[in-house]
């Protein structure tokens, strides 16, 4: 097998990862040794009346001397380091085992042809990546995800900022409004998807019968329908961030500008917006990431449907004929379906790597761009 070297490297890599896990899980045992030794020392001093001077491991072996000085002994360093390790270990080990290691495994698997179940793993290089970029379904889903994210980021933030401005006015029931607008966010994406599935499939058609226009879900309206759901769910959460920022805008600045004769629009543009720029950075980042990762709502609401025709520019770009395609098969859903439902593990993984890199680039650009527009008070 020409690829066997890479497979061996990969397997070697996996062994190392396993070793790390065993090492991490064995580490607490090493640490327990220190307090036990202290106990024994005290015991031997007071009961046995014969204080011990050296411990069995304190020979000339360098690693033991090192361990004694820095981790399990009674030196200043060791005591400090022990607290550091004890306190860090629970979250760090869970993080490494369940996030970092699977992350690198995932990148490795995207270069193989592993199907998940078989034990045969062949290194295929960039073949999976070549496959997914020549697959019109993936290109279309990539395009739709970008389209969807841009629209939902725009609308969620517009609505959220608008509502935040509204409920920071001197309204009588403003606390009720805040709580009320926030409430949809308490309900998870999946449950919410079912609620809106009912709204779109039963309630809205019943309303539209009496009003006239047809409001049922089809390929043209599905995007708007899902964005409406996301705005309904997420605007209340983002509103909270804007409210916190708006409350930090000093009132004397606003009062001064009122006396100087600034209109409401001028006040918003010249004072409020620059001062809440930090909140914009955070909110745009949060909405961008969540809309890219949108999964629960879509799977409950349409599960990728309704079907649509492949747009013409993708047809000519990819040399495809006219094809029918799932119009709301966004990337997060596509990765899940490819990797988990269709069992094309490595292909799904390659899609996930592309997804990750794209998300990383976009969010870095967004954050650096927004950071430059922030003003310090």
């Amino acid at each position, binding site marked *: 097998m020409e690829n066997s070297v890479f497979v061996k490297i990969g397997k070697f890599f996996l062994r190392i990862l*396993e070793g790390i896990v065993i090492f991490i*899980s064995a580490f607490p045992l090493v640490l327990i040794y220190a307090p036990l030794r202290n106990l024994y020392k005290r015991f031997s001093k007071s009961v046995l009346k014969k204080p011990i001077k050296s411990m069995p491991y304190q020979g000339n072996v360098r690693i033991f001397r090192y361990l004694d000085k820095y981790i399990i002994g009674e030196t200043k360093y060791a005591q400090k380091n022990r607290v*550091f390790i*004890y*306190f*860090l270990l*629970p*979250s760090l080990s*869970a*993080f490494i085992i*369940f*996030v970092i290691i699977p992350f690198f*495994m*995932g*990148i490795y*698997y995207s270069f193989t042809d592993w199907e*998940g179940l078989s034990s045969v793993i062949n290194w295929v290089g960039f073949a999976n990546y070549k496959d997914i970029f020549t697959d019109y379904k993936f290109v279309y889903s990539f395009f739709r995800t970008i389209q969807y994210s841009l629209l939902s980021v725009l609308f969620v933030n517009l609505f959220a900022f608008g509502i935040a401005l*509204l*409920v920071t*006015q001197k309204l009588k*029931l*403003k606390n009720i409004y805040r*709580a*009320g*607008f*926030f*409430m949809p966010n308490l309900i*998870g994406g*999946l*449950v919410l998807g*079912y*609620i809106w599935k*009912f*709204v779109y499939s*039963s*309630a809205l058609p*019943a309303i539209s019968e009496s009003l006239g226009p047809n409001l049922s879900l089809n390929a043209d309206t599905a995007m708007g329908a899902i964005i409406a759901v996301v705005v*309904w769910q997420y605007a209340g959460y983002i509103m*909270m961030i804007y*409210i*916190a920022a708006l*409350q930090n805008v000093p009132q004397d600045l606003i009062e001064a500008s009122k006396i100087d004769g600034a209109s409401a629009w001028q006040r918003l543009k010249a004072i409020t917006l620059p001062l809440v720029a930090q*909140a914009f950075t*955070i909110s745009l980042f949060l909405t961008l990431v969540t809309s890219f*990762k949108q*999964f*629960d709502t879509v799977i*409950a609401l349409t599960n990728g449907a309704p079907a649509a025709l492949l747009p013409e520019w993708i047809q000519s770009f990819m040399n495809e004929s006219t094809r029918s395609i799932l119009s709301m098969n966004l990337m*997060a859903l596509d*990765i*899940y379906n490819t*990797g988990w439902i269709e069992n094309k*593990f490595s292909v799904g*993984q390659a899609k*996930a*790597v592309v*997804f*990750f890199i794209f*998300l*990383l680039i976009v969010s870095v650009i967004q954050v650096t761009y927004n950071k430059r527009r922030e003003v310090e008070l």
Partner: protein
Amino acid sequence: MKRQKTSLILLEVFAALLLLVVFFPFFLVIVNAAKSISDILTNPIGFQGVSFAKFFSNIKEILQSTDVKYLNSFINSTIITTFSLLAIGTFSGMAAWVLVRTKTKYSSLIFLLFISGMVIPFQIVMLPLVRFMESITAFTGIPLRDTYWGVVLVYIGFGSPLSIFMFHGFIKSVPIDIEEAAIIDGCTKPQVFFKIVLPILKPIFVTLLVLNGMWIWNDYLLPLLVISKNGNVRTLPLAVANLAGSFVKQWDLILTSVLLTAIPVIILFLFAQKHIIKGMTSGAIK
């Protein structure tokens, strides 16, 4: 002055109308959970066919349904959420504290590692994660999938980056003098953390309880992969998905189960509203 008053009233009316629009789906859920399926199909919006008897029989059917196992799933969700929240809060607080107070290159390196974890989307980790959990089980014999502690451990892994980041920012602004005074008075370092630092961290702890709680209680994808669909520790979202999968058009049952899933969280929210909103707004901007 008078003009301002009328515009305020207009704004008030507008906000109230908007609130009604926002509440409309909730209204539909509640109304239709109290109807029979034929009444829903003929009239999904109005009050026609609403009866308490039907409401209770729907609820009874959901409670007894083997597709949902509501009580079972509810308890599972509660256990998983509670333990994950407490573990994430305490462990991340501990980690963030030593990371701030130890100024070595290791501590900044480890902090950087945690921060980089925030940009890793779940989608790239999910498939290898399941395989890796299975291979750990095969290797050590400790079952991780379909167990409470397995799910909780995974949540600790995924929840700690954001939590450590927020604790880190907060602890940096806490003066070190109190801790030094406590050490002079004879506290050991762990005592300093649990008796002095942890109470100071309370506001950010509440924020994280809210944020992580909403995430973990409602999470669907992670339990879907880590817990198999018919496993013993199935959470509420999985149960609802299971029901909606097997009764596709039975809106009376689906909406009742939706109501039963949402109600506990909404009740909790109404009771702890003040803390939750305060926690959200104080933590969100940092």
